[in-house]
């Protein structure tokens, strides 16, 4: 597949995995991830992708098989959502600690109960601290691009960490929209064959997954934390290279009409597009409002974020999940604590919206803008769940 095509975003993601020439895909079906793995199994069945498709019996085993495959030295992919990601939870921590460059697509979905098949970010926020590089896509093109980039980033010898590519379930995963597919030879140039420096190899036996006594555990955690922090510089370099080859630019933090904005809204994922249209409409009404979109959630790009919001008086952070018991969402907490140390800090307010598939609309963002002004004017500090029926 090459050139500009109308395609379902899930299928575009699978095509990226095909163009990346993945060796092993171990996956278990869950809505709304299913179209990704269905298409991959078709590509394998038709011989378009020379890979082993391991139809595991659970997501726990999917991630476990991915660790095995990656440790063996194979380029490895899986995808999941929601409860499936939660079932992987235990194993998710182990992949970055063992420096295994697995690529995981998360078609983001709410967590039970009540069971909900629809989109929000509760699933990935539960895995925030697992040590994975976590990137968010806004549209189909980004899903394709980030998936390709994810392999390149993960396998970079300076990184060697797993990468989660987040795409909103249904809201993005099930949409048909234009995606530009590159030539395979350009992809091969960007993403060479994976040749790990260390792997499970009888010719050079090594042991992985050691027993860590207290004398060493702290140091191992520090080492993997620093690897994650240091990955940012490499990711940015990979994005520069990607831009040079494919002409599309990616940044850890992306801005929209923020230059002269006194109020900045913050969002992540596909609803950022709706937010941008809302910004256009508010700008047309004379409001000085801009949008900051977090593409790189982990490692969190502190400096880039501070630079992006410099000069703003008020910041309204939107979360697609909640942190029960804390009066705050995870993105909001991240940002407020980040900005707290600034000598002249803006007011930061938190809003959660779009939980469990509740439609996120332009009106939501206009409301959030208005609320930011009210809260600041009246000196209140209140976290709000937007649109909840009282």
């Amino acid at each position: 597949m090459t050139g500009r095509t109308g395609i379902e975003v899930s299928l575009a993601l699978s095509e990226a995995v095909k163009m990346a020439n993945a060796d092993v895909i171990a996956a278990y079906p869950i809505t709304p991830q299913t179209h990704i793995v269905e298409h991959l199994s078709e590509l394998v069945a038709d011989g378009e992708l020379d890979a082993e498709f391991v139809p595991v019996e659970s997501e726990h085993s999917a991630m476990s098989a991915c660790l095995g495959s990656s440790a063996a030295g194979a380029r490895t992919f899986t995808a999941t959502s929601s409860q499936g990601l939660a079932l992987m939870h235990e194993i998710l921590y182990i992949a970055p600690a063992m420096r295994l460059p697995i690529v995981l697509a998360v078609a983001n979905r709410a967590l039970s109960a009540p069971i909900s098949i629809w989109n929000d970010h509760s699933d990935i926020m539960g895995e925030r601290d697992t040590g994975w590089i976590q990137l968010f896509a806004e549209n189909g093109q980004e899903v394709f691009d980030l998936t390709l980039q994810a392999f390149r980033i993960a396998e970079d010898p300076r990184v060697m960490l797993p990468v989660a590519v987040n795409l909103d379930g249904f809201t993005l995963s099930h949409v048909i929209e234009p995606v530009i597919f590159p030539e395979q030879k350009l992809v091969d140039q960007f993403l060479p064959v994976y040749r790990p420096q260390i792997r499970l190899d009888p010719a050079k036996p090594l042991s992985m997954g050691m027993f860590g006594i207290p004398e060493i555990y702290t140091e191992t955690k520090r080492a993997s934390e620093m690897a994650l922090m240091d990955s940012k510089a490499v990711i940015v370099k990979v994005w520069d290279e990607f831009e040079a080859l494919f002409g599309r630019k990616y940044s850890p933090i992306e801005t929209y009409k923020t230059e002269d904005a006194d109020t900045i809204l913050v969002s992540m994922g596909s609803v950022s597009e709706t937010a941008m249209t809302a910004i256009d409409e508010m700008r047309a009404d004379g409001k000085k409002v801009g949008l900051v979109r977090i593409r790189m959630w982990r490692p969190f790009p502190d400096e880039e974020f501070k630079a992006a919001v410099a000069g703003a008086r008020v910041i309204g952070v939107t979360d697609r999940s909640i942190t029960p018991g804390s009066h705050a969402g995870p993105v909001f907490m991240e940002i407020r604590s980040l900005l707290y140390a600034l000598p002249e800090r803006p007011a930061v307010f938190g809003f959660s919206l779009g939980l469990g598939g509740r439609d996120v609309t332009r009106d939501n963002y206009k409301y959030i803008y208005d609320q930011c002004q009210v809260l600041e004017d009246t000196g209140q500090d209140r976290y709000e769940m937007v649109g909840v029926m009282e």
Partner: protein
Amino acid sequence: MIEVRIHGRGGQGAVTSAELMAMAAIEGGKFAQAFPSFGPERRGAPVTAFLRVDDRQIRLREKVYKPDIVVVLDPSVMNISRVDEGLKPDGLLVINTGREAADIRKEYAFKQKMALVDASHIAMEELGLPITNTVMLGALVKASGLITPEAIQGPLSRRFGSIAARNQKAFDRAFTEVRMEG
């Protein structure tokens, strides 16, 4: 930007028709978006699908609340929901029906323009099945001019393979037989 909402029942191809339109528009150099009303609906349940077409990049992930066009694949759906809900006053309804326009307007009190075609009849004759999605696309394309009729050929043949020709014929018949009203 033109926004379209397609009403049908699970299994009638509402989603497929939105997809085919989006693919045709994208291949014609436009920007488009097609997506279903996401849910666990099974075969037979009323469903909707959405389509947006524009000349520039579409930055919107909301559902379609104020469509320019409503397409009704299955006339029985009109008895259980207001298919014209949110439809812009200068909008268009494209309806699968063998009935007279005046009849429909009287029964459902639609205020907008209507394009009517007996898609079920055409589908039975051309496809041997009461699946009206490709038929209704013929009517939609003619009534809306969203894409050229030629633009559908590529997406149709890729989607339907060996039965693409029959679908193409069904599309063509609806394109010719659609009745404009108002």
